[in-house]
């Protein structure tokens, strides 16, 4: 995979992440006693949006057209309350981490720096949502 193709994959992942966090934020907004989680979801959303914007700018600079977000994304399960919001957020971070880990392999220099930082951030956020610590975030067991 070329570096630009890797970036496009990362951008697609960020689009999906933003959609997912939009759902999480919306559900938590209507859930009593979830202020702490809602604040954390907002922080995660902002972080992903920043990554999306950075990657979009990089793809623009390459002369390629940045991948567009889908109008909607199919969620893996119904998101109706705190537990399902937390589960979705963990899944978002785990899957996005895997995309960035792959991007590390396909990039060099500045883009690899970005991919490593993004992978690290996803790993930290996944644990922030209550996931167990992994030995190899984004890569997993053999």
């Amino acid at each position, binding site marked *: 995979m070329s*570096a630009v193709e890797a970036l496009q994959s990362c951008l697609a992942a960020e689009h999906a992440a933003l959609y997912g966090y939009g759902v999480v934020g919306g559900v938590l907004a209507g859930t009593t006693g979830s202020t702490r989680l809602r604040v954390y979801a907002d922080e995660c959303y902002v972080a992903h949006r920043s990554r999306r914007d950075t990657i979009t700018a990089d793809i623009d600079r390459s002369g390629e057209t940045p991948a567009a977000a889908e109008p909607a994304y199919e969620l893996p399960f119904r998101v109706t309350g705190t537990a399902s919001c937390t589960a979705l957020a963990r899944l978002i971070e785990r899957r996005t981490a895997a995309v960035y880990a792959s991007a590390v392999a396909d990039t060099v220099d500045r883009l690899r720096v970005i991919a490593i930082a993004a992978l*690290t951030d996803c790993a930290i956020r996944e644990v922030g949502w209550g996931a167990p610590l992994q030995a190899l975030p984004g890569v997993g067991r053999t």
Partner: protein
Amino acid sequence: MGDSPSLSRRLLLQGAALSGAGAAVGGCASSPDAADGRSRSGSAAAPVADSGAASASPDVRLVESAIADERALLDDCLAGAATFTGLAPVLDPIAARQREHLARLRAALTSGAPGRPSHPRRVPGDRAAALRRVRRSVVDAQRARRTDALAADSGPLARLLASMSASHAVTADLDALSP
């Protein structure tokens, strides 16, 4: 000396290298890197044996150094958990992750030799100092694996090292290890 001869070791995790030789034989069309115009051919989907590249490549030396580093962190965890019983719940999970790191790093090399033997770690005098030592080692390991990931020529190796760096970042963030 316990060192395995570097001449006999090959890196299993191969991706199309940035070197001239690697780019010339890369099977995928390369595209300009968005940042600086350097290109990178597609990376291997699975580990393949090195068919005869120069021995003691930088990536091999990088893996050997990472093995020594990760082993030292494992030894710190084991020593701390053995000396201060109450630290086992904190340090044992870190040790388990370290064992997985070591297994993956060793699997990245063709030689089965374990490399340099570990040395007994001096355990700090008290529980808090032992935790501080482990945290310092974790932070150092995070930075080192990140540096290694940026330097690695092999894409799959860079990915593995970046993942290890991310794992250390999460560990360093643990409340149990915070000063």
